[in-house]
């Protein structure tokens, strides 16, 4: 420890030109002592461990209007795949909470009018060491240190975070600042001993420390008193570098707005850095690129109430009571006596564990002891879940209006405000009357755009789906939405594509079309999506590209899908200009022509593909009946071909006949004859009758609903059918009739009854005669007697 004291004396010289303050990121105790030191030392410059290309953000972070949690967001796009994968975007957050020492230092610097700057490597320079998403202020070096593991064991702590809380967050507030700094420095210096110089070189720690040492030396030449605020792990490393003079002189100094040199080998990396809103929920996540501390809401309470007597006990009481209330709301039977017991258990646990006061871990353990009355081997209890939620908190921060928030993010927040959407981390739902209220229609366009841009912001729960044409009868859309960092991150990344959501969506639509050269159906789907997003201006260029794609596309299904989407555009009145409408009509005519010309090749489709094909056939028929510009004769010719060919799939054959019947190109007698030819056929041909009927009913259901000829025809054949043959055919016939609605089946049944047993009009509705009743009762008695005799009843 003497070694540490000597180092501490050199690092913590309040009279000297350079003072180091070691911190752990997001530590209230560190912030508490840092404030004391800053006020005592009165530095001219404060240098902080943070990405130095983020210096322009400092005034915004320190601004009084900025409400935490917020974060610096760094992203690097690797277009050429220099780090391994082409076009991959790497990103990291540098979160700030009220009690983060870095932010507290920035706020104090602003208050005391002293210079503050970040001195760490830019993300694009740090990233190549890891080639994966990595955070600056992740505590992995401390967490993985063998010394810390040993210390955890010795102190009876389950892991690094509990050890930290015991040694610094609980004891820290009552320590003298110098004593606190020495203890923290010792902790970090010994933790560093677990690593070799090679380890630290490889993971980029040395490079970062060199960059920081170089910035410190530069600052010293300019200012008389410089305070350095870095992670405790780096203090010894930086001090050694300064003593030995081994830091990179070649690296350019950072000033706001500077474009810093990147290592030569990775010069093509494109980096962005912005400030953004953040949440407690994400600040709680440990590891990965979202670094943080556990229990952010709990520590926020400690921070806000610092200086008050019995600080930790008050926080304990607050969270036990809140947990009790919330658990009861969720149906748990937690009583006041349980809350008292939890408080006492926490106190006794702290005493047993040698802690001066209770911390978050005693709080959790006490709630488990006193509130939980069940086996928790495989599940979490209600109380544990509630406490976990309370300790994390749901607060979401906001950056000052002065912040250089990307225009796209600004546009997003403006629209959120316009539509009255709430920015917190709760999931909410909105119902939109899309056909009757203009504002709701605009809000729907906003949601469609956010969904299209894959921002993890919203999801449609109910409503018509214009692309797949399902649920079209619905008149309302219900959307769920939830603000989260991913949304803002995603928007920042897309910022380079445009300044508003509409511009970016337009750019992405264009990009998708450029990538799609031959799939007309998908391209027309994109047209519908564009219209749903309210991108009217994209329609004209989109139609031009769609025309070219239709020319190249040789797929029948894709072309009919395109035709269908184009029809929907007109049906739904999604277009606002007449010129676009005319252009679509042209395109419909062209696509129709192509579809019909391909019909001839479709006759021999396998059975499993016939139903989607029949739907498409109906779509073509719909088009030709609706638009006079479409050549009906060609369609009729193709249908005749399909209807008469012996090689045609029978369902398609039936559908073609049905369409011809509907167009009055085939009489009902001809259809009946055709049906009869199957029913009187041999072997497989006989079985094909039902599939013919299936196709026929799909395209000409009115043949049964309006006339009796077909019923009579079918009946004629069925009458002559042997029973076993009829039974073989029956399942297929049932399938054929399954396309009728229940009301239609009822109508058909009435016609069949009328055909088979024509009853006098009055008999249909008159009640049973006395004679009928007597006869029926007698039959019933006889049947009952017989069944009883057989022992069935």
């Amino acid at each position: 420890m003497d070694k540490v004291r000597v180092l501490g004396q050199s690092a913590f010289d309040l009279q000297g030109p350079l003072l180091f303050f070691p911190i752990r990121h997001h530590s209230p105790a560190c912030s508490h002592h840092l404030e004391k030191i800053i006020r005592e030392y009165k530095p001219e410059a404060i240098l902080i461990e943070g990405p130095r290309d983020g210096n322009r953000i400092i005034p915004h972070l320190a601004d009084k209007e900025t409400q935490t949690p917020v974060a610096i967001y760094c992203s690097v796009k690797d277009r050429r795949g220099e780090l391994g994968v082409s076009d991959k975007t790497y990103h990291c957050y540098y979160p700030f909470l009220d009690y983060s020492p870095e932010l507290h230092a920035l706020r104090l610097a602003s208050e005391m009018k002293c210079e503050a700057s970040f001195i760490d490597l830019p993300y694009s320079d740090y990233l190549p060491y890891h080639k994966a998403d990595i955070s600056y202020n992740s505590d992995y070096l401390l967490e993985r240190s063998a010394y810390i593991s040993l210390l955890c064991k010795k102190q009876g702590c389950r892991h690094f975070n509990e050890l930290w809380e015991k040694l610094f967050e609980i004891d820290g507030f009552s320590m003298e600042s110098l004593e606190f700094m020495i203890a923290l420095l010792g902790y970090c210096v010994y933790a560093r001993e677990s690593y070799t110089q090679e380890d630290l070189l490889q993971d980029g720690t040395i490079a970062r420390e060199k960059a920081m040492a170089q910035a410190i030396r530069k600052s010293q030449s300019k200012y008389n008193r410089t305070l350095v605020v870095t992670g405790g792990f780096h203090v010894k490393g930086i001090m050694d570098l300064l003593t030995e003079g081994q830091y990179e002189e070649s690296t350019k100094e950072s000033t706001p707005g500077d474009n810093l040199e990147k290592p030569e080998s990775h010069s093509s990396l494109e980096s962005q850095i912005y400030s953004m809103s953040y949440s407690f929920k994400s600040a709680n996540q440990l590891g990965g690129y979202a670094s943080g501390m556990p229990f952010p809401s709990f520590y926020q309470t400690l921070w806000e109430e610092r200086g008050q007597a019995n600080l930790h006990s008050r926080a304990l009481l607050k969270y036990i009571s809140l947990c009790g209330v919330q658990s009861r709301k969720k149906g748990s039977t937690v009583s006041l006596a349980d809350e008292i017991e939890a408080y006492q258990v926490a106190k006794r646990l702290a005493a047993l564990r040698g802690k001066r006061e209770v911390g978050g871990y005693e709080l959790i353990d006490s709630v488990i002891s006193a509130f939980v009355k069940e086996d928790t081997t495989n599940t979490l209890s209600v109380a544990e879940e509630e406490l976990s939620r309370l300790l994390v908190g749901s607060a979401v921060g906001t950056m000052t209006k002065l912040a250089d928030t990307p225009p796209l993010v600004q546009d997003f927040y403006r629209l959120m405000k316009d539509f009255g959407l709430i920015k917190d981390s709760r999931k909410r739902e909105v119902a939109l009357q899309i056909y009757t209220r203009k504002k709701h229609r605009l809000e729907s366009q906003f949601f469609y755009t956010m969904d299209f841009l894959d921002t993890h912001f919203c999801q449609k729960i109910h409503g018509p789906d214009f692309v797949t044409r399902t649920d079209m009868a619905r008149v309302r859309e219900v959307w769920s939405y939830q603000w989260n960092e991913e949304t803002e991150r995603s928007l920042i990344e897309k910022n380079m594509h445009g300044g508003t959501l509409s511009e970016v969506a337009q750019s992405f639509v264009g990009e998708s079309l450029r990538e799609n050269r031959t799939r007309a159906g998908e391209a027309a789907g994109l047209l519908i999506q564009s219209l749903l997003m309210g991108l009217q201006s994209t329609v004209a260029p989109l139609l031009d590209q769609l025309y070219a794609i239709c020319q190249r596309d040789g797929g029948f299904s894709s072309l009919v899908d395109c035709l269908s989407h184009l029809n929907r555009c007109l049906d739904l009145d999604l277009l606002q200009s007449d010129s676009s409408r005319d252009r679509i009509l042209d395109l419909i005519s062209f696509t129709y022509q192509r579809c019909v010309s391909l019909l001839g090749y479709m006759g021999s489709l396998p059975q499993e593909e016939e139903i989607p094909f029949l739907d498409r056939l109906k779509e073509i028929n719909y088009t030709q009946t609706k638009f006079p510009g479409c050549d009906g004769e060609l369609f009729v010719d193709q249908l005749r071909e399909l209807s008469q060919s012996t090689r045609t799939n029978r369902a398609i054959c039936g559908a073609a006949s049905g369409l011809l019947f509907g167009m009055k190109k085939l009489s009902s007698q001809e259809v009946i004859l055709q049906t009869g030819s199957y029913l009187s056929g041999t072997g497989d041909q006989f079985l094909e009758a039902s599939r013919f009927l299936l196709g026929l009913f799909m395209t000409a259901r009115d043949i049964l609903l309006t006339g009796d000829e077909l019923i009579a025809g079918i009946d004629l054949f069925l009458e002559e059918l042997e029973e076993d043959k009829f039974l073989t055919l029956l399942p297929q016939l049932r399938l054929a009739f399954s396309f009728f609605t229940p009301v239609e089946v009822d109508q058909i049944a009435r016609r069949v009854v009328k055909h088979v047993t024509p009853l006098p009009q009055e008999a249909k509705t008159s009640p049973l005669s006395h004679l009928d009743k007597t006869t029926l009762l007698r039959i019933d008695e006889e049947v009952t007697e017989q069944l009883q005799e057989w022992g069935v009843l």
Partner: protein
Amino acid sequence: MKPPAEVLYEEELNALEAHDKANKPASWRLSPQAVRTFLLGGNKPLKLGDKSVTISQKFFGDDLLVEQCIVTLAGNRGLMLIGNPGTAKTMLSELLSAAICGTSTNTVQGTAGTTEDGIKYSWNYAMLLDRGPVEEALVPAPLYRGMKGGIITRFEEITRCPQEVQDSLISVLSDKVLHIPELGENGVLFAQPGFNIIATANTKDRGVNDMSSALKRRLNFQTVKPISNLKLEMKIIESEASRLLEKAQIETPIDRDVLEILSTTFHELRNGVSLEGSKIDQPDATMSTAEAVSVYFQAAMNAHYYGEESISMDRLVQNMLGTVFKEDHEDLTKLKSYFTVVAKQRVNKSPLWSDFYQGKRWIK
């Protein structure tokens, strides 16, 4: 026979008592810190006379649970240990009791036939007839003894008792008073400081007699979970199996390779996932560490008494069947499936795994 914990670890308890300077709750033999050291082991040996006594670790796998149990017992509520069978609930209860009050034998063994008399007190009927209801005629049961002596009363398998018997504890836990109406005005027994209850219940048997919420409120529940660390489980099986073999006077060293296969199999079947990450059907039977110890011990006995040099994989599988197959035939299918999917993958890992896989033929 296994002596009670206070006899087995008498030296350790004496050494801890001699060095214990921390504050003790009223009537406790040791402070909460010393109780924790007794259960979890100490770093340094303690001097006791001219001897140096090392405090061994007796409970493994969950230090936090031990701390939570100790602070519960130092308070006003009783302690309820629940969990799957074979998770050392009884051992934990016994050790806590021995360390806190010096005795672990003041115990009620809960069964369906347990009556209130067996918990509170009964009468010496000859004396009752002779002298009437006087204190001398009263035969104290564990609850009475616990309250009078200010010691822990252990209540094993509490949920096996009928609910009305369980509920007789409610007023005792609330007021710490036992009423003996037969003794008239003097019939009130106030619990002495140090009295508390440690109850245990198997999760699988909870449905036998559910516990009233009134009693639940007077107990702090602690779930004793199976050991999640495979290496630790192996260590425990090794130490327990050695102890049993030593007691049975069988001088045979522990075969670590056999032990590894046994522990791994039990660990994987219990957790429903193999070390490689494959999902495994979990048998309904209890695949606890205690059962694994028993399987090893039985296999070692077989090998010893039938003149085999070492434990063969056939013996291991045969003994394992006794654990897995209790009543449900489905469990045998699950074990078979484990051999087919998981054990087969390891055939090339070592000849022993290959032999173990061959043992599949015993699963009928």
